[in-house]
Structures are given as C-alpha cells and as structure tokens.
C-alpha cells in the first residue's frame, strides 16, 4: 500500500486527505499519481505538471519526506509502504 496525502489547497479542492494505492513491485511516481487521480473525486495532476509532463513549481511533492526534485522527479521509483505528501507551501510571513 502507498499512501498519497494531500494538504492545504489541494486537500480543500479535492475534499479528501489521502488515497491508498495498492502496488506490487515498483512503479514510477507518475504512474502512482495517475492511479491516485483515478480514485480521486476530481482531476489534480494538471496542478502538479504541465502538458509536457514537466513538474510545475507551485506545489511540493515529498516521497518519504524528500522533495522529488532531489530524487528522480516524476520518474522517482515508488514501492510498497512509501508515503507521498503533496502540498502548496505557505510562502508568506
């Protein structure tokens, strides 16, 4: 099981906090996110990536607490037990 957790604006828009994805072996992050989108009440991938499949810079995606920009971005390998946290951070002070 992989947990995909949504926070702040994304959580409000989707109306859910998390989606569990069954996974066998290893998948790429983009594949897991597409699986999550199928189970979500609304599409959300367009908020995370552009039409070319490049990550947008408006939200943070952490895999097991590490920003995917420091991993393999959307190609980051995901395995059973991993946690994916997604949130637009607050930049104000």
């Amino acid at each position, binding site marked *: 099981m992989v947990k995909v957790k949504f926070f702040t604006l994304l959580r409000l828009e989707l109306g859910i906090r998390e989606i569990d994805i069954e996974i066998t072996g290893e998948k790429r992050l983009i594949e897991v996110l597409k699986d999550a989108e199928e189970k979500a009440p609304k599409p959300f991938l367009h908020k995370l990536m552009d039409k070319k499949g490049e990550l947008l810079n408006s939200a943070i995606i952490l895999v097991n607490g590490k920003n995917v920009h420091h991993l393999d971005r959307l190609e980051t390998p995901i395995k059973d037990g991993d946690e994916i946290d997604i949130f637009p951070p607050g930049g*104000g002070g």
Partner: protein
Amino acid sequence: MQKHSDIQARNLLFFGKSNMEKISKATILVAGVGGLGCVVSEILVRLGVKKLVIVDNGIIDEPDLGRQALYTIKDIGKKKVDAAREVLTNMSGLTEIEAIFEPISNLKMSKIHSCECVVDCLDNFKSRFELEEKLKQGQVLIHGGIQNDFGQLTTIIKGETPSLENIYANIKEEETIPVSTPIVFAVASLMAQEVINNILGSPQLIGNLLIVELNDFTFTKIKLKG
C-alpha cells in the same frame, strides 16, 4: 522599571526559575517583522529574552495593519524596525532591542552568528535561502511560512537537518500572498514556542515539518529527509 519577577510571575510559575534564567540569557534574531515577526517578537519580549535583533527593510503600509500586531495607523510610513523597536522596548523593559533596517542580503554573517537562534519570519523564499546560506554550521533556524489559512514550520540545524533548499526546491514565488489574520498569530505562536523549546534544549521540530490547517484545526507532522 518593573521587577523581572513581577512581570513574569505567571510564566515563572510554569517554567520555573532555572528555565526562566535560560530564557533571560538568550539572544534571538528575528528576520522579518511583518505578520509572523511581530507576534514572535512580542512573545519573546514578554517572556524576557535578553536581546532581540530584528531585521527588516520594509515600511509600514495600510495592508500591514490587518495582521502585523505591533503597528497602528499612526505608524504608516515609518520603518517597521523603528516602530517595532519602540513598542518592544517599552513592553517590559527587560529586553534589549537592536533594529537593523536592511535586506537579508546585506545582513552581516557575524551578526547572525552572534545569535543562538534565528527565526525566519520572512515573506519570500529568496530571502529565506539567503538567510539560511549565512548561518554557521550547527546554528538553529526556526522557519515558518503562511498562506490563506494554512502554514508550515520546522526547525533547521545548519548542516545537520534537511535544509530549506532541500524542502522547497524549485518552488515558485507568489507576488501578493493572501493571508488570514488568525493563521499569522497561530503559526507565529507555534514558532515562538519552538524558539523556547530550543532555548530550553527540547526542540520538537528538528527534521519535522509541521503543517497547520486552521480551517479544520488539523496539525500534521511530516518526517523530512535531506
């Protein structure tokens, strides 16, 4: 001037003499005296830290009054650090206030290094990264950020924990950020608590990002990796 123990009688009852002495010896740098910085500074002064260094290059404008607790309508047009210094100096008479009217990019590293704890109350990621870059190895940075009615905070230890750049890689800067007044006070209060936790040797957010969602009162800790 009031006696130390009179002003802090209720805090003394809670923290105890030994902990209050640790707090009274602390020098803290607050980077940014906008929404978060005003509240963090007020709490630290009311708790009686030895010295507060406040840094900001902003001028008080009308929209600031909706969420920046140290300023009134009479302060419009003044430097934030000047108005804040006046209020904070008169608050208890216990804390020395040093006001620095400069952008973070001009702040001397020696000034930062002389403080045992640095509080990031800035309003943009560029300045945050500049501040983090200037920390000495092992120095403590309490980071907070807010938007709408949510926010996040963490404790960075330079060279030991995941850095701000690790957490916020490639994040986009927003031009004008919508902010509700309650999230300012809520996150700033939590940041001040974590400053005290660090002074007293029991930090709670080292390597953890606390996400605060006020609209349904959800607090979530995420374990970070560098």
